[in-house]
């Protein structure tokens, strides 16, 4: 059996709270601040780790969907056509592969994202006007949803001024 990761993270937090932080020189503000931040990080990791794969898989699924839309809409010259071919190749690879870890999935998100970045630049160079507008809308729509998912992912960090209005992590996977 695997010892529970959550239990081990909780043990780390307890060791910091009950043993390590009380032993830190009270005049050492940096060490005190860093130890407190460790607890915050560990608590957040404990909330996220079991959902990280589904989160990244959700990102890849959404990015794959908009890449398909971009391919359908792409109209332009040599640069636009070349990048469209690159996107098609990335989509072919994704559709025939199985990604089982967060890292493998993130690599595909990165690759497809780079293709879309290249398309944004290619469209500026030789895309037709209607395509440039549509591409912008597609990327903005995707980014709005993705920003909501990422804000929900970090909701517990307490930095988002609108955190009370955000969905919980399970709702955005």
């Amino acid at each position, binding site marked *: 059996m695997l010892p529970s990761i959550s239990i081990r993270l909780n043990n780390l937090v307890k060791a910091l709270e009950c043993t390590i932080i009380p032993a830190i020189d009270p005049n050492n*503000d*940096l060490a005190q*601040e*860093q130890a407190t*931040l*460790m607890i*915050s*990080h560990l608590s*957040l990791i404990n909330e996220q780790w079991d959902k990280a794969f589904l989160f990244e898989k959700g990102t890849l699924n959404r990015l794959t969907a908009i890449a398909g839309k971009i391919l359908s809409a792409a109209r332009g010259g040599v*640069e636009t056509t070349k990048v469209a071919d690159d996107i098609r190749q990335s989509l072919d690879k994704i559709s025939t592969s199985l990604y089982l870890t967060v890292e493998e999935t*993130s690599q595909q*998100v*990165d*690759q*497809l*994202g*780079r293709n*879309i*970045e290249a398309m*944004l*630049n*290619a*469209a*500026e*160079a030789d895309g037709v006007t209607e395509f440039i507008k549509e591409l*912008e809308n597609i*990327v*903005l729509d*995707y*980014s*709005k949803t*993705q*920003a*909501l998912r*990422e*804000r929900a*992912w*970090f909701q517990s*960090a*307490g*930095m*988002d*001024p*609108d955190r009370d209005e955000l969905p919980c992590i399970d709702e955005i996977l």
Partner: protein
Amino acid sequence: MNKIPLPVEPRIQYLLDRKIRNQNLGRYAPRESGELIMALEAYFRHLGYTSITVDNLKRITGGASKEQFFFRLQCREFAEPKRFALRMDPYESIVETCRLREAQLLQQIAGVVPVPPVFAVDPDGQHLGQPALITEFVSGVTKPSARGSEGVSGIGFGLGDYAERLKLKFIDNLVAIHTWSDWNKKALSSFVIPKPATTEAALYQVGWWSAVWALDKVESYPLMTLVENWLIKHAPICDDPCVVHGDYRVGNFMFQEPSGDITAILDWEMTHFGDFHEDLAWIVQRLYGHFGDHGQFLVCGLMTKEELLQRYEEKSGKKVCKETLRYYEVLNAWKSAIMCLGTTITVGVNGSNHQDLLLTWLSGAGSIFTNYIIDLIRGE
């Protein structure tokens, strides 16, 4: 797209080149007190002071950028011991900035607004190991003492009853910075002043941050490319470039308790010459504000956005252009997103800062800015 190369100030390019070199230096550990005291004493000897003792070295926490300390210096040349503040660069920071620029600006703008007097600057770390700026100690607090240690780097704390007392002084100082015009160009040799009535003011900033993103991007993020292209296409003309503080907000000024008198405007590291709208757009970022008792959103915890803009226009005589303000809100949110989504993570990977842990924590704020950018571009 064959983009036209964007302009970057020579001193900023120097800092970015230095950042690349520093990435080969390995992990950065916080400076140890004994070693730093020895380095300071040797530096002051080099500057001509005699019978030197440096003591009471105390690290300042709460910031997210540079290593900062207070210390006391006794020497034959002083009638009595004096306290100073030291700002030092780690190998990499959330933003690469220049101690020389900071010192030049502080020396020039002293008397226009309250700033910490400059005592010494070691721009390339020749004496102290890392670039450093030493300023005289200024009394005051950056947040009400009753609020304790809540909030990181100006994020998530309120000013309570002090908001009413501080808001007009906050605007007065901003207006003084933006209307200051008798600077000595030679004494500000590390700055580029954009040409009036051109788009240079905006494009120098896009150029700086585009170069940072190129260095620090850890994963693709199509929105960032879209925004960069949008910023180039929509760059506004700036008729009359002025000093832009660059990080003017709650947490970056000191005030006396209980009077609420502002004793120093701090943190001039991102200062440059540009468009006054840029500072206004920085102040109104959602990350630095919170909701007031009556449900209204208070920028920097001080006042509503509408009140800020109205009072600024009244005091400065400048007309705020809504489209230009929107442009700089997008630019500032993009800069902040670059720091959070790129630099904080790169620094975390390299272990090149004294508090990587804090920087990677701040990476979680990136999507607050990207969400804001989308609303702004869509005019929502």
